């Protein structure tokens, strides 16, 4: 520790601290325009010039990179320092008169009209002020080495190599993050990391996988994290106090041997851009229900505030039911949960804003405990319910002030009239649909699907959790659209079924099952692929097929297909059946 004197204040700081940090400690403000705590001091704006006195010698140094030494006296606001800052600021202001950070700094340093007119004057509000922070970020921290300076002297500018888009740029956005003027813009389409799934806006490589996850543990996406690309950055490790960041962790595939499986793979949301009339993906402020859910979420992109893209609160919100469900062009079934979450949305919008709310429904399906009561409460809250499927969403404007708006066109079947309702925001209640990869999952477990595409249960009424494959159970929206209570009930039932088998310790198998007469089997493998229960395997050493008796359901498909009649029912061979028939005939 050394003691230094800054503007008459005595401060004790660690040796080799920069004057800037020491001044911070002493509560003395020193202007900077090229300094960032994440970067090594660059010392080019020279605004942080201070006067250092040691013994009889006094000299001007830059505070950002000059290390303090014991007994130093520093004047951060002497006449000379003020003069230097003033002239430097004049130079910057005359070149970039409209850049906000320059204007603000000039104001703070009481510089008004620059005395030196600049021939290189740049009127842009987001002009590059050559502070170099982006270049240093890209080269020293990120280590991507994409940004650099070209030309010398007054012609200096920040460029990409050969002024072209660089393959080395992974659009990490670190340069734009440090840019004080907004000169650097990130084109999200070029972003090479994970695209946001359930949230709006860009997603950083470090994120909590789901909103309000418990425990709230963030993950690093190795695809978009710069560190895995260049070996640089590591800012997260620097700021993480418990030292929890471990870059050496790898994805791993774990193989676990199990006797039973509960398939609860969930659902996908219907992509509303398939119904172009509603403008999803085309018009601003048209959201899917999940996107709106993330807007409502207190940890979401807007911090739970309901705002439009412009940042303003909407004056009216329209909620359109049955997008893709109850629609023979897409899904004929009812998604079951939409009516209730649409009511919840309406309730929250009413709670958080003064917006008018319109619900466009075909039928209100508020079945279930307490649901109808909630619907009635919403009616009391003044939500406008319009019975009629919305026809389309178009752009329009508010009467009176002419501000842009959206218009929902529909036929109100209760009053028998065509209506156009102006709103600022539209929320679409997208259908629940089977997951894209459900067919692959189905084949893996030999589960069938019902006509709507969801996994087929063994019996819709008597056995809604098990499947035709022994030991494979289903629950939740993988089986069909349902809300959370229903899913919990179904999953509980499936778990109980699984536990009962585990508790018993043994498995009962079907009495009727197939068997291979190995002396007749030619090893053609026709039966292998036909078996719907993947019960037939091929014994390479014997060159014959073999039936796994625990899996075989005795359906007989293989028996019928076997060209050499080697496959036969166990206890039901042709000879046995013929003998039984003979017995009957007597």
């Amino acid at each position, binding site marked *: 520790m050394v003691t230094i004197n800054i503007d008459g204040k005595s401060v004790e700081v660690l040796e080799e601290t920069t004057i800037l940090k020491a001044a911070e400690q002493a509560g003395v403000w020193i202007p900077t325009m090229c300094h960032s705590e994440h970067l090594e*001091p660059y*010392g*080019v*704006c*020279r*605004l942080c*010039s201070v006067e250092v006195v040691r013994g009889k010698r006094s000299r*001007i*140094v*830059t505070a950002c*990179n*000059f*290390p303090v030494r014991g007994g130093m006296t520093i004047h951060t606001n002497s006449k*000379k320092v003020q*003069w*230097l800052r003033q*002239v*430097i600021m004049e*130079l*910057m202001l*005359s*070149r970039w008169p409209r850049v906000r950070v320059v204007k603000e700094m000039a104001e703070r340093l009481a510089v008004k009209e620059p*005395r*030196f*007119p*600049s*021939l*290189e004057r740049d009127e842009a509000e987001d002009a590059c002020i*050559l502070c*170099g922070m982006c270049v240093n970020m890209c080269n020293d921290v990120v280590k991507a080495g994409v940004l*650099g*300076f070209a*030309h*010398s*002297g*007054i*012609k*200096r500018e920040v460029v990409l190599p050969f002024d072209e888009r660089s393959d080395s740029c992974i659009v990490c956005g670190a340069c734009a993050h440090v840019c004080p003027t907004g000169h650097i813009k990130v084109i999200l389409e070029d972003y090479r990391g994970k695209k946001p799934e359930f949230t709006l806006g860009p997603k950083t490589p470090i994120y909590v996988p789901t909103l309000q996850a418990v425990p709230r543990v963030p993950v690093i996406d190795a695809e978009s994290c710069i560190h895995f690309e260049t070996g640089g950055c590591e800012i997260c490790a620097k700021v993480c106090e418990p030292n929890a960041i471990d870059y050496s962790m790898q994805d791993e595939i774990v193989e676990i041997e199990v006797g039973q499986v509960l398939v609860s793979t969930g659902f996908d949301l219907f992509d509303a851009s398939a119904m172009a009339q509603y403008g999803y993906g085309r018009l601003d402020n048209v959201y899917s229900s999940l996107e709106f859910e993330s807007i409502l979420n207190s940890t979401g992109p807007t911090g739970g505030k309901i705002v439009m893209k412009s940042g303003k609160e909407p004056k009216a919100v329209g909620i359109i039911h049955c997008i893709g469900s109850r629609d023979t062009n897409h899904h004929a079934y009812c998604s079951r949960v939409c009516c209730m979450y649409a009511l919840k949305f309406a309730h929250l919008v009413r709670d958080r804003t003064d917006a008018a709310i319109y619900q466009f429904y075909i039928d209100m399906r508020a079945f279930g405990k307490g649901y109808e009561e909630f619907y009635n409460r919403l009616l009391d809250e003044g939500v406008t319910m319009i019975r009629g499927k919305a026809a389309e969403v178009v752009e329009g404007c508010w009467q009176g002030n002419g501000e842009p708006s959206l218009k929902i066109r529909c036929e109100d079947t209760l009053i028998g009239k065509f209506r156009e309702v102006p709103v600022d925001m539209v929320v679409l209640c997208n259908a629940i649909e089977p997951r894209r990869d459900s067919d692959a999952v189905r084949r893996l477990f030999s589960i069938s699907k019902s006509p709507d595409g969801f996994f087929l249960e063994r019996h819709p009424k008597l056995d809604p959790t098990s499947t035709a494959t022994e030991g494979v159970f289903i629950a939740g929206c993988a089986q069909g659209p349902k809300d959370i209570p229903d899913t919990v009930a179904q999953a509980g039932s499936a778990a109980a079924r699984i536990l009962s088998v585990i508790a018993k310790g043994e498995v009962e198998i079907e009495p009727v099952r197939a068997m291979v007469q190995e002396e007749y089997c030619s090893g053609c493998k026709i039966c292998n692929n036909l078996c719907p229960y993947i019960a037939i395997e091929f014994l390479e050493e014997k060159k014959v097929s073999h039936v796994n008796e625990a899996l075989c359901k005795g359906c007989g498909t293989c028996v019928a297909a076997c060209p050499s009649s080697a496959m036969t029912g166990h206890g039901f061979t042709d000879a046995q059946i013929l003998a039984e028939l003979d017995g009957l005939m007597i």
Partner: protein
Amino acid sequence: MAYRTYLMVCAGTGCVANQSMKIKDKLESEIRKRGLQDEVSVVTTGCNGFCAVGPLMVVQPDGIFYQLLKETDIPFLVEEHFVKGRLVKELLYTPPREKAPIPKMSDIPFFADQTLIVLRNRGLINPENIDEYIARGGYQALAKVLTLMTPDQVIQEIKASGLRGRGGGGFPTGIKWETCKNVPSDTHYVICNADEGDPGAFMDRSTIESDPHAVIEGMLIGAYAIGSREGYVYIRNEYPIALERLQVAIKQAREYGLLGQKIFNKDFDFEIRIVRGAGAFVCGESTALMASIEGRPGEPRAKYVHTVERGLWDKPTCLNNVETWANVPQIIEKGAGWFSSIGTGDVTSDAWGGSKGTKVFSLAGKVNNTGLIEVPMGITLRKIIFDIGGGIKDGKKFKAVQTGGPSGGFIPESLLDLPVDYEELTKVGSMMGSGGMVVADENNCMVDMAKYFLAFTQAESCGKCVPCREGTKRMLDILEKITVGKGTEEDLVLLEELSNMVVESSLCALGGSAPNPVLTTLKYFREEYEAHVKDKHCPGHSCRELIQYIIDPELCLGKGHGCHVCAKNCPDGAIVGETKQVHTIDVMKCGKCGICYDVCKFDAIHIE
């Protein structure tokens, strides 16, 4: 094989550009023609220094100096001098305003007043032959150091000598070496800065061209003292001859076991690598130079952590300029006492207390004897310009001399008795710099001169820091405004303020010294600025916008009889008049190119 006579033909860049190699070939063929090839040998040497009269040749051992040679002169010269034994008077040097030629090189004032340490071998050895360097005592200092001295003794010797950095900074070399040596590290580097970028300066180039081994030997001694095993020479690619000679010299030194491993069978390894610079002025700044060697853009950084502690690749690095390194072998050989007996001040207690040894200057501008000179520290500027330099060209009046390259200040006549000394030059607003010296005469406009040099430094600014990038450009704008006659008195105040700001707050020495020409001219020649601003008049008659060419009718008709030459040569057709009549210049058409002024034999054209 010994010859009767040696012809030392200068093969410095200036003479080579003036076809000295053709002269050498012609000499050889003429000598062979006359069967003298076993008696007369033709040798190419490094720069002789007297570039104003090149291509030139010295006949040794007599020391006869032939100048301004042409290929066509050679047969006659060979016949007269080497066959008949008569001097060719027409090719000897005659000082301006005198009639009798001076045959001997040592009698010519240009050479007589010089003291040679760094350039001691110039014109005497073939720089591409290591044996000639060794024959002149080369590598003896290295042998002495490696066999008789410890590194600390070497450093003490250099410290005692008072040698200071010849690149411009004037930092005491011994202290630099000592600090570098004392930084604990597995690797130390030594660097030779041969990135001489000053316009009109060629000290380092000529030193390498005429005596590359002196630089290599100096670096070897420095490396031994510091404990370095690796050295770099950063040389600009625009110096092809210097580069080639250096490559040859390094190769030869390696063959002789003077570079490489176990030098002189001692536990001392050293290797030199050449790095070619692309010609950026700022790369002569040590931190920018190191960045350039590392392969990064050549931009300086703040030197609050010195390069001797963290330099090249963050290792302790000792960087000295060509001339500094070339001084080292001589100091070791002849002793610190001998070296410190030359020069000013006293360095025994304070390393900054004086300037010792010699300094090489490249004398340019409006002096008669332009060229390369080596003079003892403490010599007055007047002696350099009027004795060695032979005075001002065409008998004009001296106005100012700029020392130290494009960022040096202008020194007026009243200060001509100033001794050449680091501190003295700095005191009057100029600097030693790397040794550029440009002389201005009464016809030079000081505002224009300041503008010229500022335009250079402004263009060479890397643009990293605000004061240098923006400040020098704004200064140039103001100077531009003044030279076209649009300046105001307020502009002078702003210019001065801006200059002081750039000096105070720039990141590196380029910005810190770039305003020197402006500040010194404002100080010593303010009346010229005021003439531009107030009277819209250029006293040096060189700012185009402020002058007018006028034909004196009496002289035109009286002396020249209306010769019409000016009208014929005028590219703008601005001169009206018939032969044998008075000519006049149409001011509206005149492009002020000055051709008429140059072609008029009767001095009938005036500038106003």
